[in-house]
C-alpha cells in the first residue's frame, strides 16, 4: 500500500496568472499582498534547500521552524545575502519592494483606494514585484535542482550500500 502525503505538482501554482487576475479584476491591493506573499514564501522555503546534506527532526524541531518563520521578509533577505544565494542588486530591489508593500499595508485605512494616483502606485509596485518574483523563483528552482542532483549521486538514498539500507526509514 503506497503511502499518501497529498502531493501537488511543483508547477501547479502560477503566481503571474493569479496576480494578473487580481489586477484585471481591479483588486490592486490583493495583487500586491499576493505577490509579496509569493516572494516571502519562496525566500523562506529556499532556506531548506540551501544547505548541504539532509536535516532530521532533531535539528529542525517545531520550535526552530516557527522561530525561523517568524523572522520575516527582511531577515530572510539578509540571510540569503550572507549565504550568497542572492546578489546585492536583488537584495536592494526586494528590500525596496518590501518597504513599498509595508507602506501600503500600514496606511491601508488612511489611503483612498479609489484615487487614480494611488491605484497606479500600487500597480507599479505589483509590476516590480512580478519582476522580482521571477528572479527569486529562478534561484529557488536552481537550488531545488542542485539538491536533487546531490540525491541522484547519493548512494544512501538509492539504497545501494548496507549503511544506506540501515538509514532508510
Amino acid at each position, binding site marked *: 500500500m503506497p503511502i499518501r502525503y497529498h502531493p501537488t505538482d*511543483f508547477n501547479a501554482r502560477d503566481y503571474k496568472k493569479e496576480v494578473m487576475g487580481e489586477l484585471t479584476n481591479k483588486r490592486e491591493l490583493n495583487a500586491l499582498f499576493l505577490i509579496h506573499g509569493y516572494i516571502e514564501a519562496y525566500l523562506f522555503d529556499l532556506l531548506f534547500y540551501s544547505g548541504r546534506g539532509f536535516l532530521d527532526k532533531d535539528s529542525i524541531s517545531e520550535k526552530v521552524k516557527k522561530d525561523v518563520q517568524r523572522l520575516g521578509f527582511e531577515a530572510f533577505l539578509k540571510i540569503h545575502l550572507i549565504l550568497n544565494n542572492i546578489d546585492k542588486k536583488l537584495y536592494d530591489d526586494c528590500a525596496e519592494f518590501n518597504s513599498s508593500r509595508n507602506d501600503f499595508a500600514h496606511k491601508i485605512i488612511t489611503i483612498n483606494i479609489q484615487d487614480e494616483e494611488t491605484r497606479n502606485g500600487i500597480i507599479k509596485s505589483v509590476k516590480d514585484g512580478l519582476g522580482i518574483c521571477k528572479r527569486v523563483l529562478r534561484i529557488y528552482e536552481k537550488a531545488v535542482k542542485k539538491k536533487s542532483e546531490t540525491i541522484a549521486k547519493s548512494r544512501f538514498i538509492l539504497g545501494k550500500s548496507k549503511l544506506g539500507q540501515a538509514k532508510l526509514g
Partner: protein
Amino acid sequence: MVGVTDKMVCKKNCKCNEEKATSKTLKKPKRQDLDMAKEKYIYAFDPSIKKRVVFVVRNGVAVSLVTGRRFRYRPRR
C-alpha cells in the same frame, strides 16, 4: 618498411583488434544522465519535519530534498 615485421602488420590489420578497441572505447550512459531524464518534482508533506517540502520523483519513488525521507509515489489519474 624498415622495422615492420609480419607479426606487427598482422596485428595492425587484424579485425579482432578492432573489435577489442571498440568494446574498450564504448561508453555506457551514466546512471546520473538516465535518472535526471526521468525526474519530476512535487510538493508533499514530510513527517520528519512536519512541513510540506519538495520531493523529487524517480522511478516511482519520491525522495524529500530536505530530509531524504522517501515514499512510493503513484500520481492520481
